[in-house]
């Protein structure tokens, strides 16, 4: 989705790059082009203006970094502003939900609410082992109830639905769905709602009533990534009527430039939580601002470089993960994170390369290709949180269940556990070697010098696995 924004921004940024030292005129001229690129990418008019003002301030004002070259300075400024624009301090799912947890989806017509409801149901079942109930509260669109019923049947997720009748109100359906969820010991309810336009007062009042009846732990605004300037207008209007938790951006598998993603956060103050990446129920991703910002700027290296010259907040966190791992307290999530990172930058290989007798281990890690990674992910996702934290509890029957859940042979689960134990041993001995009574700070510096940090993606492991 973001390739073209990357390209057009890239062109605008080239101007900065050529400039070396930045004069005020360079900055003004460059920013004009950046603004054009942003508008072309559907960034909201006001947001584009503000954004360029902010970047300008960073480049010309006191906040500028000393000793950093012009082009890096610009990219850094952009990166910071992009992350600030999209940054999410909230987890994608509400942190301390009631039981059962209730999620409500709202949005314009055709945004992708119903599909996303099914996706969330699958997500909650797969990753949080929740028993999920889908509630069909779109009584407007013909066959909307049918659509949800079919999606539920396909996934084996129960759907609470009533056949639409002229006097049936969606808030009543929502209330009865909740009742059913309590009675049936469900752990989560995902409520689908009708699409609406924000100028339709009747329908806006209706969704307010649905929210009041469902009392959701999180109300998400579902937003089509192809939306233009209206994204902000609609998001604001929904935000005025509903207690929005965050935004789910759909259809990012297309080639829209995603300016809506940049704008909605700034205007509504609500973060992006999930991304819809296709029509199928599995096509849902958790949103990560940092990653998206880097992708937009498409220059991970430079960003990393400039970042390294900065405070070590994130390094601290990564270092803590290291410390834990090197004490041998490794979890399945660490393993998965390592596999993922490895695919990206081969960092672990470097670590192991330094150690005597590590050849076999890095060989093992080297074999991981995309398909295997997907299988490993599936296996880890089929584990309960407790199993991920304490893989030693994985007895025969648990292994069988995991194999079934992830569609692999038990032998493959065994192999995964083997690599896990190997890695755990390696980390432990590496920890001993490196540490030798050194303080955490010194270990950190040592790792830094050897070019190992940051090994974790900034911000640590993929968030979904923390909980």
């Amino acid at each position: 989705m973001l390739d073209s924004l990357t390209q057009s921004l890239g062109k605008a940024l080239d101007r900065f790059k050529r400039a070396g030292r930045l004069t005020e005129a360079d900055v003004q001229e460059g920013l004009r082009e950046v603004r054009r690129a942003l508008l072309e990418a559907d960034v909201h008019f006001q947001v584009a203006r503000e954004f360029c003002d902010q970047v300008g301030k960073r480049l010309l004002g006191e906040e500028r970094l000393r000793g950093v070259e012009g082009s890096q300075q610009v990219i850094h400024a952009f990166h910071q502003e992009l992350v600030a624009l999209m940054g999410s301090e909230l987890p994608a799912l509400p942190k301390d939900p009631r039981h059962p947890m209730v999620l409500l989806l709202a949005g314009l017509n055709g945004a992708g609410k119903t599909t996303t409801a099914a996706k969330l149901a699958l997500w909650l079942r797969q990753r949080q082992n929740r028993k999920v109930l889908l509630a069909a509260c779109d009584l407007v669109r013909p066959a909307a109830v049918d659509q949800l019923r079919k999606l539920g049947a396909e996934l084996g997720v129960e759907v609470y639905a009533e056949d639409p009748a002229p006097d049936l109100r969606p808030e009543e359906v929502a209330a009865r769905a909740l009742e059913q969820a309590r009675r049936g010991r469900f752990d989560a309810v995902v409520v689908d709602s009708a699409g609406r336009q924000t100028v339709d007062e009747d329908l806006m009042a209706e969704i307010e009533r649905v929210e009041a009846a469902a009392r959701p732990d999180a109300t998400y605004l579902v937003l089509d990534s192809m939306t233009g300037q209206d994204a902000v207008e609609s998001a604001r209007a929904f935000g005025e009527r509903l207690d929005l938790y965050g935004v789910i951006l759909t259809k990012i598998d297309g080639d829209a430039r995603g300016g809506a993603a940049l704008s909605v956060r700034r205007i509504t103050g609500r973060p992006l939580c999930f991304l819809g990446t296709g029509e199928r129920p599995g096509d849902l991703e958790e949103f990560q601002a940092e990653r998206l910002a880097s992708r937009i700027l498409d220059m991970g290296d430079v960003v990393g470089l400039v970042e390294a010259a900065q405070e070590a907040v994130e390094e601290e966190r990564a270092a803590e993960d290291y410390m834990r791992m090197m004490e041998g307290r490794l979890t399945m999530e660490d393993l998965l994170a390592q596999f993922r990172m490895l695919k990206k930058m081969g960092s672990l290989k470097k670590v192991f390369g330094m150690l005597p007798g590590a050849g076999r281990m890095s060989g093992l890690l080297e074999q991981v290709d995309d398909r295997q990674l997907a299988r490993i992910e599936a296996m880890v996702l089929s584990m309960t949180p407790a199993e991920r934290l304490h893989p030693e509890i994985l007895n025969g029957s648990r292994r069988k269940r995991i194999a079934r859940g992830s569609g692999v042979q038990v032998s493959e689960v065994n192999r995964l556990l083997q690599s896990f134990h190997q890695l755990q041993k390696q980390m432990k001995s590496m920890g001993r070697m490196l540490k030798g009574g050194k303080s955490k700070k010194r270990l950190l510096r040592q790792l830094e010098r050897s070019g190992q940090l940051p090994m974790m993606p900034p911000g640590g492991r993929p968030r979904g696995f923390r909980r």
Partner: protein
Amino acid sequence: MVLSRLRAGLQRTRNRISHALRRLGGDTSLEEALEALEEILYTADVGLLAGEILDELQGEVRRGAIARADELGPWLRERLLRELQDPGPEPLRLQPSGPTVILVVGVNGSGKTTSVARLVAWLQGRGLKVLLGAADTFRAAAVEQLGIWAERLGVDLVTGPHQGDPAAVAHDAAEAALARGADVLVVDTAGRLHTQKNLMEELAKVARVLDRKIPGAPHETLLVLDATTGQNAVQQARRFAEKVPVDGIFLAKLDGTAKGGAVFAVQRELGLPVKFVGLGEGLEDLEVFDPGEFTDALLGPRPAAETA
């Protein structure tokens, strides 16, 4: 019903123009006025064409052709109108004999099925016998959705198995249209992103099959664009037009806060005119595109922005 809705829309429009003009009128400087217009155009999704038009406008100001802020609005309206093609009262070319085939395409959720239904209502209003083809075999309950509309409209619907070949449905529908002597066959298709190669090929095949059954079909291919779509609309139109012979745009969801300004670029870059607009979720919520009304609405008030 339609009229009252349209009037409500137009009322908003007038307010916005007068509001804009108030902002522009009297003691407003040209500078400020130009800035206000810039914002109106960009926030209506007119895109980079806005920059071009504003440059022209500035040129007019510089050479003294425009001296007062309140002259800017009318100039802009005329200038925008020059970009749009008027489809006239008969936007569809109906075949003199044999069924006219209308194929409706577009990205996911743009409003295709609803637009198919209201096109049928519009055609029925002209005394034509219509048949429907449900070639969305993919989305859950897509056939049921169209089936409900068909029942309300009292027209026959040709369907195929779920997950089946949409071209087969198109084939059967064309055959049925010939056999039953329908004047018009309207074929609904599954939403697809224009970036999905296989699905775009699938669509091309639907058009080919129709042509094989009824030479010259589809006679009208309408691309349904969501009025909230931003600059991606051009890309959508380009890719769809590469695969099927798109004749025009059905601009849906114009009843919301979105202004649909992306159609300027679609018209300019691809020569595709807007033929119909959708103004709600009902059968009656269809209008033949009127460039004047559309432009007025575009320059009209944006309720949310004013309270912000």
